[in-house]
């Protein structure tokens, strides 16, 4: 039986941010997740936007947490070496209806303290972003909206938390929680039982299932599916700013986003579905994204698509951020309602949740020697000839190009696997170092990455997975079909 002071369920942006906050203090902290990798469901497949609170509902907890979190992003990126681009966003105004929205949006932004959110006339906007539809009437410019590498943000926080003593249990699904005398006692997982003094439910899309286990569930969560296209580096029309639809209460609508890796990300849709495992793109959804994006940026070249994917944001019914420190099941902390704004919000949520738990009696003692910083894996691509030569001299595996599309070397892949909370699947390697993220979509490097994973993990190739518990790359001996 494993014993821990704190067990965090869910290794998405929120769970990992809480874990990193706890890593500053003494005591054992475990994070478990049903997935094979950190990054959860929503965090790893979101748009990677980190925005101001301009469009947030005024006066809500969500707005407060988001506002505070946004000020923390740059320091996190500096300390943990996370790629971010400060590109700003533009919401082009195309219709009379949208034009009518503008004063309301500006007023809301003002109330939320986002005073640099402003309307600009057509000519000025087109000069800033010539790819926009020339038929626009103007646009709202939001200079402090940025684009962060959402995969590496969570990976970096997890690596740093692990270096500071947090333990990660992946491929580990929680199947039950035992409470006795009004307290949580033990958590039953697919990898054994864990005795925990505190249990933090940061399970995102599955947080209602966990909440039910302690009888603290008066809500339901369903996936709000978002379909995306990713366009390749060589596509002729690339945006300089994040281009967003004029927001509606439900969603920011379709976005056209320049990414930290020099791709163009286009999406998402916002479709509420029942099935929590549904990650299917649809003909209608992809068509909707294409049509709406082309209205804003008519030159986008969808023939240069390198992949399409679905992100699943957790949608809570009823809505709203909820951080529950349970009275009924003491030791249980439930976090729910963290929706698409959660990637940014996670930074402040980490602080907020720990603060609330201290208020409920958790005694914390600051650790000696907490490490604040972490460096990312040094990339080969994009370096000068001399820098590349020096990298190879240091580690000859830098001279073995495995992914030709993104020019990723074996040295980077090996580091991705060997680091704390390292990659154990092809998708996890891909998210960390981009092997397979290019135009051939791992057709060329897939077999090689498979062989490297098999070698580094000491497992047969048939046991190497694309992701998840059972998404094996090859025919697997345990399948008896």
């Amino acid at each position, binding site marked *: 039986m494993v014993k821990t002071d704190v067990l965090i369920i869910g290794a998405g942006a929120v769970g990992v941010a809480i874990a990193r906050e706890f890593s500053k203090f003494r005591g054992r902290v475990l994070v478990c997740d049903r997935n094979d990798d950190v990054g959860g469901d929503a965090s790893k497949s979101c748009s990677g936007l980190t925005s101001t609170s301009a469009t947030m509902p005024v006066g809500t907890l969500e707005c407060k947490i988001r506002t505070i979190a946004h000020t923390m992003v740059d320091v996190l990126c500096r300390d943990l070496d996370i790629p971010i681009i400060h590109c700003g966003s533009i919401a082009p105004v195309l219709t009379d209806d949208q034009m009518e929205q503008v004063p309301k949006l500006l007023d809301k932004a003002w109330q939320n303290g986002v005073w640099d959110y402003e309307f600009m006339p057509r000519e000025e906007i087109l000069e800033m972003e010539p790819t926009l539809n020339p038929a626009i009437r103007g646009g709202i410019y939001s200079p402090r909206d940025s684009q962060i590498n959402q995969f590496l943000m969570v990976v970096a926080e997890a690596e740093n938390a692990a270096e500071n003593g947090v333990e990660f249990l992946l491929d580990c699904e929680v199947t039950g929680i035992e409470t006795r005398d009004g307290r949580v006692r033990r958590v039953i997982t697919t990898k054994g039982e864990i005795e925990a003094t505190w249990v933090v439910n940061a399970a995102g899309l599955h947080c209602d299932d966990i909440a039910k286990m302690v009888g603290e569930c008066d809500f339901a969560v369903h996936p709000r599916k978002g379909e995306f296209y990713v366009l390749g580096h*060589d596509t002729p029309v690339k945006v300089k700013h994040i281009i967003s639809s004029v927001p509606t209460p439900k969603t920011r609508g379709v976005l056209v986003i320049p990414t930290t890796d020099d791709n163009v990300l286009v999406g998402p849709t916002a479709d509420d579905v029942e099935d929590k*495992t549904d*990650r*299917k*793109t*649809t*003909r209608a*959804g*992809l068509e909707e994204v294409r049509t709406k994006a082309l209205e804003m940026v008519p030159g986008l070249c969808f*023939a240069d*698509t*390198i*992949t*399409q*994917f*679905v992100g699943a944001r957790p949608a809570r019914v009823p809505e709203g951020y909820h951080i529950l420190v349970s009275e009924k099941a003491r030791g249980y902390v439930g976090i729910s309602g963290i929706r698409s704004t959660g990637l940014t919000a996670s930074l402040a949520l980490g602080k907020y949740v720990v603060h609330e738990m201290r208020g409920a009696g958790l005694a914390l003692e600051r650790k000696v020697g907490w490490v604040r910083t972490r460096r990312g894996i040094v990339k*080969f691509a994009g370096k000068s*000839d*001399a820098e*590349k*030569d020096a990298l*190879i*001299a240091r580690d*000859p*595996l*830098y*001279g*073995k*190009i495995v992914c*030709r*599309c993104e*020019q990723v070397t074996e040295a980077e892949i090996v580091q991705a696997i060997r680091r704390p909370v390292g990659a154990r699947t092809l998708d996890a390697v891909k998210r960390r170092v981009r092997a397979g993220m290019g*135009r*051939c*979509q*791992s*057709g*060329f490097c*897939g*077999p090689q990455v*498979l*062989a490297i994973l098999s070698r580094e993990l000491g497992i047969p*190739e*048939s046991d190497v*997975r*694309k*992701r*998840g*518990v*059972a*998404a*094996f*790359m*090859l*025919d*697997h001996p345990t*399948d008896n*079909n």
Partner: protein
Amino acid sequence: MLGMKTKTCDVVVVGAGPAGLSAAEAAKSAGAGNVLIVERDAAAGGILRQCIHPGFGLKVFGEELTGPEYAERYIERAAAAGAELLTGTTALELRDRELVCASPSGIVNLRFGALVLAMGCRERTRANLVIPGARPSGIYTAGTAQKLINLFGDKVGREVVILGSGDIGMIMARRLTLEGAHVKAVVELLPFLAGLARNKAQCLDDFGIPLLLSHTVVDIDGVDRLTSVTIAPVDEKRRPIPGKEEKIACDTLLLSVGLIPENELSRTGGIALSPVTRGPVVNQFKQTSNPAVFACGNVLHVNDLVDHVSVESAEAGRNAALYAAGALPSAPAFPTVAGPGVRYVCPQSVVADGGEDVTLFFRTTLPGRRTEFLCTSGGKVLATRKSPRTSPGTMEQLVIPKDAVAALDGPVEVRCEHGEVLA
């Protein structure tokens, strides 16, 4: 920088597949002093190494060889001619007269008199087709599956559907069947076969594998591993017909939906590319928009037979050697035009130099019977040929006699007139 290596060569060849090997041999035989082939893999042979089936070499050697056997002959010929081979080395960037390469021993800058691009092609992916559905494991491009099975000795799956009737897809249908898998169907969007007819006979018909023309995959299921694909017939505009969907249980989907010349290196060197072939724009010498850079094989345009690649690449290698020696002829060039019924013509221009006959390679847009191919310039017929049966899967040729080449004074058009269209 001090430690960085530089090497000067008369001719550098990128890629040691069939195109590169043939080009290097020819360059050396044409008198180039030192010829260096750069290959990122640990061994020469390129994609032929994984093509363990027979069917290669009928035109060049007059006998049927497997891919590795065919490659072996050219590896020996290139070595015998004196071309040097550098394996485990990846070309990173093309500059004006310099190629930057990486290997575990460091960065090396290769200065060249002439360069031959012979990087081959890559496979189109699911994303290029926008197939909606889930993204489970068990979906491979046909070539990747071929590599896993034939080079890595892996087993990819048991119940298989193949999308696309390209040659690799059909060859993999047979290969998987021989490996004990059950290939349930080969599904083709077009109303006709994409690959060679002989591959349908030998790989599908002989094994009783059904070919469904005018069908496509409209949905994919599976949370972890693939569990099924849904196929549907398409109308004449290639749109799926609603209500006719059929779900096929399977754990493996192979995609054989076309090849794309791999020209990212060419792009770093600013080489002009054709939007149709997606390979460099060349004249009959296989010379690109950078006169010191030549291109051949599938990096130039996707070929049907490796024998064609060998022949075409030998020309590229020889011309590169001539260019490096300052002996490649120059004369006014005239564009080639894909006329009615023709998808593209390669080369894209003809230099009016009468030294040799010029072979134009092209593909038709539709299959047909009793077809006549015509090459004209300014109303004058330069070459013509009749064919009982044609298909877009087959690369066609017309030869312009050298006298006509020398006399050129305007664009050259290739067109195709079918006695009967078979679409």
